[in-house]
């Protein structure tokens, strides 16, 4: 069987992607010029963007996938909190090993994916409402597991979390000692996920089906695609990635508490949108999403390095950017409709 043709709206995708990457380069260059004294020009600073956002990258990839089908998943922040809490609780209070913890994390993600996917795909309930319930449920379950703040002290887990992989370049510090740049294993996992989703969406039958459904569900159905099944699979994968992302998040924070990862879903959505995913579905790309996350990371490190601005400026700047991209998308979509 032949693979499906690529959709014709790739030009819109390309344009949005270029805007995103351009914006990131511009912002980072501005940061390097303004704060070169505070180490913004060091390669480690750049890698820290990946290190602190590895979980978000994975979660945003799942979000992008769901958004391409025309849906949304706002439960990911709660799933992350639940995963962190369960992982911490199982290892610290029940003496589970770090490997069992991975299984717990992925299992929670899959369970959310199955239930939400079933409700959205087979019962035709609005994705927003379904995942709203998921958001409530996840956060509440986290509190039911424990309301304490549990920090993780499991040795295997900490060894994974703090294992530094050195890269063949680096910088010299103030005393003139050479320090190689390093990343954590989480970064490699995150980048592999981006690559996997990229290949999945671009070169497999499943990926082309996802785009077709997001572009026009009715025509996809007419073409004989199994819309319900594909949607279900997309939500399943999204749930799995939320579980995995949650685990990476736990590796970064090494703790579990109720208020963790609050608002992460909004970060994931805005990263996808800034990365060029159309909210109406049918257009999107994990590479763009990766840059969306990096832009978000750059904004927050610019504002923390600057020092005098308070942390809520991160939110305001991010929303302004989100607004800009949403309006840009709206203009692109309406122009495309006029061309038809």
């Amino acid at each position, binding site marked *: 069987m032949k693979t499906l043709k690529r959709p014709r709206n790739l030009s819109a995708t390309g344009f949005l992607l270029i805007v995103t990457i351009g914006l990131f380069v511009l912002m980072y260059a501005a940061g390097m010029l303004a704060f070169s004294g505070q180490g913004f020009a060091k390669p480690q600073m750049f890698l820290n963007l990946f290190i602190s956002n590895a979980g978000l990258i994975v979660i945003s990839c799942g979000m992008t996938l769901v958004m391409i089908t025309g849906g949304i998943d706002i439960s990911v922040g709660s799933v992350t909190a639940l995963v962190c809490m369960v992982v911490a609780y199982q290892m610290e209070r029940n003496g589970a090993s770090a490997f069992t913890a991975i299984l717990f994390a992925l299992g929670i993600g899959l369970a959310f994916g199955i239930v939400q996917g079933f*409700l959205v795909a087979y019962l035709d309930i609005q994705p927003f409402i379904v995942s709203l319930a998921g958001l409530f449920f996840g956060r*509440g379950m986290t509190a039911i597991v424990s309301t304490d703040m549990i920090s993780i002290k499991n040795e295997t887990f900490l060894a994974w979390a703090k294992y530094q992989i050195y890269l063949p370049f680096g910088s010299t510090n103030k005393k003139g000692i050479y320090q190689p740049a390093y990343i954590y294993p989480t970064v490699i996992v995150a980048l592999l996920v981006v690559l996997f989703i990229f290949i999945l969406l671009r070169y497999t039958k499943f990926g082309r089906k996802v785009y077709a459904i997001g572009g026009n569900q009715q025509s996809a159905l007419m073409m004989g695609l199994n819309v319900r099944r594909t949607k279900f699979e997309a939500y399943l994968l999204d749930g799995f990635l939320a579980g995995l992302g949650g685990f990476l998040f736990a590796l970064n924070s090494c703790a579990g508490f109720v208020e963790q990862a609050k608002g992460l879903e*909004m970060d994931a959505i805005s990263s996808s949108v800034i990365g060029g995913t159309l909210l109406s579905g049918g257009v999107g790309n994990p590479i763009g999403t990766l840059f969306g996350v990096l832009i978000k990371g750059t904004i927050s490190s610019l504002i923390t390095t600057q020092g005098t601005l308070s942390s*809520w400026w991160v939110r305001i700047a991010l929303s302004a950017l989100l607004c800009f991209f949403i309006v840009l998308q709206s203009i692109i979509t309406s122009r495309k409709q006029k061309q038809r």
Partner: protein
Amino acid sequence: MPEAKLTSPGQKKPLWRRIAGHHLFLPLLCLIVVLLSNLIKTPDFFAITIQNGMLRGYVIDVVNRASELVILAVGMTLVTAASGGQDISVGAVMAVSAAVCCQMLSGGEVSVTTFSNPLILAVLAALLASALCGAFNGFLVAKMHIQPMVATLILYTAGRGIAQLVTNGQITYVRVDAYKMWGSALPGLLFPVPVFFAIAVVLIVSLVLKKTALGLYIESVGINGNASRLVGLNGTKIKWITYIICGILAGIAGFVSSARIYSADANNIGLNLEMDAILAVALGGNILGGGKFSLAGSVIGAYTIQALTTTLYAMNVSSDQLPVYKAVVVIIIVVLQSPTAQKLIATQRLHHAANRIARQTGGDNT
């Protein structure tokens, strides 16, 4: 369906069937079940006493605490009906309104014991700020044709930041009795003041909807935007108006809730209340995809949620664990409302009707 033909003329449906078929039956039933379930654990749940000229009791507490939610649910119902989506920024808009109001009253100080500006000016400024927020949401939804939840996501994320900006990141206290009374009690009134705010909002909005054609316009735009455009309705304007109303109502709710704690806590005022408001609309039997709406249903829904919250607190469920039960309720409601379930119920009804006709015609022939 030729429903009228199925019941022969002159023979009315039995009373219980007419009651059960009413659109407010299920929401009311939910509310009553939730309230009655309290009797198991707290037998004196319905007891009401008078202290210092004020009514006190669990039920009064539910009615009092639900006030902000009722106000928000009214706005959310209109937005849902007209645009087929929800405004998730109302909680953040409440924070903005509270921040503007308290900042005007305190004149920039952290804590004051006298007003720096007249109260009416501060309230007007707060309502103006929240109307602006609503107008911004309305612009994105109505003019730019962006999905409501995503358009309002912008203010949802930024709103609390803006509120922090207004109050310079502090919690502004207004320790003035003339301000506190709006959130607590007025001498001579049996009920707390917020209750009257809720009643007034519901009355005014429903009067406006009844006396003008706005209610009809909102429904027709929500049911079929294209068709209502063809009959000459300006859908953009109507949607925009609903978002502005929703913003102003969120502003009123913000004022009430800041008067309760006589301060502007940008991080906590109206936190997660947008989710409760959406839930209230759904509980009231309104379709979240827009179209026909029932204000009374949403109001009952809002009281049900507050009753549920109070009940769970009474059962020693901590506030952190509360969302789990709310999530279960949401899922049950939306599954019952879902097209698949509705189709199942409809086929069941059709079967019943067909059986009855078969029996009747069979009887006529013999």
